[in-house]
Each structure stands twice: as C-alpha cells, then as structure tokens.
C-alpha cells in the first residue's frame, strides 16, 4: 500500500465519522425533544431520555473530536512557536507531534481496559452494559491517533501555497 491508499482509506473513515456524527446529533435532538414533550404533554415523564442523552453525549464528544482532529481544529496556543526561534525547533515540533500521538494511543489502550473491566455494570434505565457508553473513548482515541498520524502523510492544507504542497 502506498500513500494514496492510506489517504483514500482515511477519506472513507472521515465520511463514516461524518455520518455517525449527524446520526448522534439527530438522535440527541430527538431524545431531548421527547424529554420535553413527555413532561408537558404526557402524564408521566420518560425515564430513559436523560440517560440516553448522556450516552449520546459521550459518543458525540469522542467522534466529534476525531473529526476535529482531521480538520486540525484542536485548541493550540500558536504564539510562542510562531514568534520565537531557537535551535532544534523543528525537532521539538516533531517531538510534540509524537507525544500527541502517544498520549491518545495510551488513552485508547487504558480506556479499552477500563471498558472491559467495567462491562458487568448495567445502565439502570436503558438496561444495557455500561461498556456501550465507555466504548466511545477507546474508539474515538484510536480514530484520533489515525488522523494525527495521517497529518504527517497528508498535504498540509488544501489552501496552502503550491510550494508547500510540492514539499
């Protein structure tokens, strides 16, 4: 497999993430609407809406953060690295990229363990294993690792100057 195969694979993953994100937000909108409707127009408030909302929220955050990684939207403070020059700056920037990948890789591994260890616990109103909710963390972190790694392969910015694209 060469570079274009990886890029095509990533494009497919991003499309899938987009669909998931849309579905999660739409489901969240439905769930929260049901919560309001059931309280105002039905005799009994629905019990499951609040819990399902929180499960969807975890998935929203981690799939959203994965899409955000692909779009390079994570908060950073540019100021120091933009204005100050020091020897070995490029190497330091590489090291930071490596720690970023390492951090999310560790988080993916650790959270997968936690998910499996806690799988016996059942969410009270939905009656499903809490692992369904926890799973968002390792999956999201693994996707972020993929996108951070691909950032090294991908052309830096579609709007970047031609010179940068050639590099």
């Amino acid at each position, binding site marked *: 497999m060469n570079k274009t195969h990886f890029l095509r694979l990533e494009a497919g993953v991003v499309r899938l993430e987009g669909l998931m994100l849309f579905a999660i937000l739409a489901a*969240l909108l439905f769930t929260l609407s049901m919560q309001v409707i059931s309280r105002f127009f039905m005799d009994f408030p629905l019990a499951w809406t609040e819990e399902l909302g929180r499960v969807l*929220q975890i998935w929203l955050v981690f799939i959203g953060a994965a899409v955000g990684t692909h779009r390079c939207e994570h*908060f950073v403070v540019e100021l120091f690295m933009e204005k100050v020059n020091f020897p070995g700056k490029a190497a330091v920037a590489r090291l930071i990229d490596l720690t970023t990948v390492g951090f*999310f890789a560790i988080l993916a591994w650790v959270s997968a363990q936690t998910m499996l260890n806690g799988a016996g616990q059942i969410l009270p109103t939905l009656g499903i294993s809490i692992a369904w909710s926890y799973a968002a963390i390792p999956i999201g972190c693994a996707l972020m690792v993929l996108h951070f790694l691909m950032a090294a392969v991908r052309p830096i910015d579609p709007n970047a100057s031609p010179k940068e694209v050639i590099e």
Partner: protein
Amino acid sequence: MIWLFLILLILLILLRSPIAVALGLPALVWLFLNDISLGITTQRIYGTLNNSVLLAVPMFLLAGRLMNLLQVTDRIFDFAMAIVGHIRGGLGHVVVVTSMIFSAMSGSAAADAVGVGTITVKAARERGYDPEFAAAITLSASTLAPIIPPSIIMIIYGATANVSIGRLFIGGIIPGIIFASLLLIAVSIIARRRQYPLMGQFSFRRLFTTLRKAFLVLLTPVIIIGGIFFGFFTPTEAATIAVLYILLLGMWYRTLTWRGMYREFVNAGSTVGVLMLVVGISGLDGWVFTREQLPVLFMNGVSGVVSEPWAIILVLLAVILVLGMFMDATPIILMVAPVMMPIVASAGIDPVHFGVLFCMTCVLGLITPPVGVALYGVASVSKLPMERIFWATIPFFLSLIGGMIFLVFVPSAVTFAPNLFLN
C-alpha cells in the same frame, strides 16, 4: 510534584501541544510517578462528561450554526437599522443592537463576531464609515454574546464550579444591558467627535415592515430566555426547543436544505468534540489538583495578600485577564475555576456574582491580542489587520472595563434578577 505537573503543562502549551494533550499528559505522568492506576484517567474523563447539564453546549452551538446558515442575521440587522439607524453614528448603534439580539439567541462570541461582522463591515464601506470603526464596534459588541443568555462559557463555568446555570443566565441579563448601554454611549461620543453623517429619518412604516420580517426570528430569544426565566425549561431543554424552532423557521423561509443541514450538524459536532474533549480531560486535572491540595495552596497565597472580598475579586479577575490574553475562555475556566472556587466560597462572595464576572473577564480576553478568537474572526471577515482593529477598539474596551469595575462593587446588579425570579 505539583510543580513538575504545572511546569510540564505550561511547557507543552508553549510548544504548541493541543490543549487536550497539554492537560492530559502531565496527569498521566503524575499518575505513573505516584503509582496510581491509569484507569483513573478514563473514569475521570467519563465522569466529567457523563453530566446532562453539559448537553446544553451542543444544542446551543447547533442553534447558532443553523441561524447563520439560514441568514436570519440580515433580518435582525434591518430591524435594528429601523430602530436606531437615524441617530448620528447610526451604524455603530445598529451593530450594538444587532449584536444584543443575536446574543440572546447564540452563546458564543466568535459566532457573533463572524455572523454580525460579515454584514456590518460591508454596510460600513457602502455608507462611507471607517471600516475600522465598524470592525471595532462589532468586536466590542461580540462580548455581549457570552454575557447575555444563552452562553456556552457560562454552561461550562456552571458545570465546572457547580453553580446553577439558570441563575448565571438570568444574572447575565442586567450586566449585558449595562454593557450594551456603555457601548452605545461610546458610539455617540465618537460619532459626534468625528462628525459622522446623519442618514435618513426615523419612519414607523419602515419599523413596521422590518419588524414583520424579523418577527419570527425575534421569537427565538423570547422562547429561550422566557422559558428559563419562568422555569418552564432547563437550559438544555430551552436549547433543544430553540434548535427545533430554528429548523421550522428554515422550512418556513425555505432556506433550509438537507445538504446545508447535514454540513452544519457535522460542523457543530466537531466543534463540540474538540471543546468537550478538553472539558473531559480537565476533569482529570481537577482530580489531581484536589489530591495535591492546590486550591488550598492558592487560597493561602491570595489571602496572605488581600482579605476584602472586592480586593479578592479584583486579584482573581486580574489573573484571568492575563491568562485570557493568551488562551481561549474554555481552557481557562476548566483550569482555574476549580482552584479559585474555595477562595470565593470562604470569602463569602456570591458564586453567581463571581461567575458572571469570571465569564465576562474571559470574554475580554477573546477580543485582545495576541490571542483572541473573536479578534481573529472580525479581522478575517473585515480583511483588516488585527493591530488596526485593536487600536480602534480601545475606547470601547475601556468602557467595558469601566462597566466591569462597577459590577465588582455592586454585586446586586448581577444577583438581583436571579434572586427575584429563581427562588
């Protein structure tokens, strides 16, 4: 040990590490060195995000995105033009009024700066105003968005510091009106000095036609604020109703397309993701800070210097203002609020009063260089250099600081409304 943690955190931020990593990596190292199970990381992240209060964030962000998609800002702008456009320096007044209405529907200063800025800078060029003036007033007025409810940073503050979000929202109304009035006064003074032209007469007919066009849009803030004010909805539910209402409006105006809707849902999702990832990871840091008793250390440090409540507030706000020049509002709240809250509580300061001041100070940081999201937003839509916009902003900035100082000494301006309505 805690110093190693803080030094590593600052070093990572300076070296352009994503804030999520800069917050998370030192915590991993700390857990490892203290021989505590790394499983704590997942539990703390999950525990922080497993909070239904935070669900208001995605809903309000989605509402703001959809509003920009449906181009309702034009309708609000025309309506504001009909109310205050005839006064000298009319465009400046129009920008403040437009931002105020927009603020009551959206929760983010950056969305306001971009949404309103796109229209106003164009309008300023057409009418012979300095584009800097229009950009500066748009930037200053964008600070109203997180003060006038709904407000995303107030939700984050409320969830982090354990303060009622409904109370924070209602507490922001009077300060928001005070700030808007100060900006209007500043616009009048500048317009008189520079002899900006008068444009057109006030006409009831125009007011009526623009009101009719904007009426359905203007109902959005009524639903959101009214619903929370009278206790019909929680902030999360109000945000949900707002999204549904805006979707209906989009169908009514026939500006809503499936493609546009899909795009804005995904955009809102990724914005929420990166924002709340930081929220989740900061929950881990909060746990470490508590274990290391950092709030106690900080409290002893501050109370060694000052003891009066107003002096404590001023010291804390000064810290936030300096941080705000370099960082975004959300990370500041997440890092600083847990450390500051014990001092606030022990000095007998009302947490709602402090919370509103805290959020406003963070917002002032969004419009100041070197790092300011709202400043970047206005600079990019107006195509003016950041320095020029910022210098033109100084008079407005000073009047906002004046308003802040007033609110520090008059807590009841903040606490009066929530105490009256939400008891």
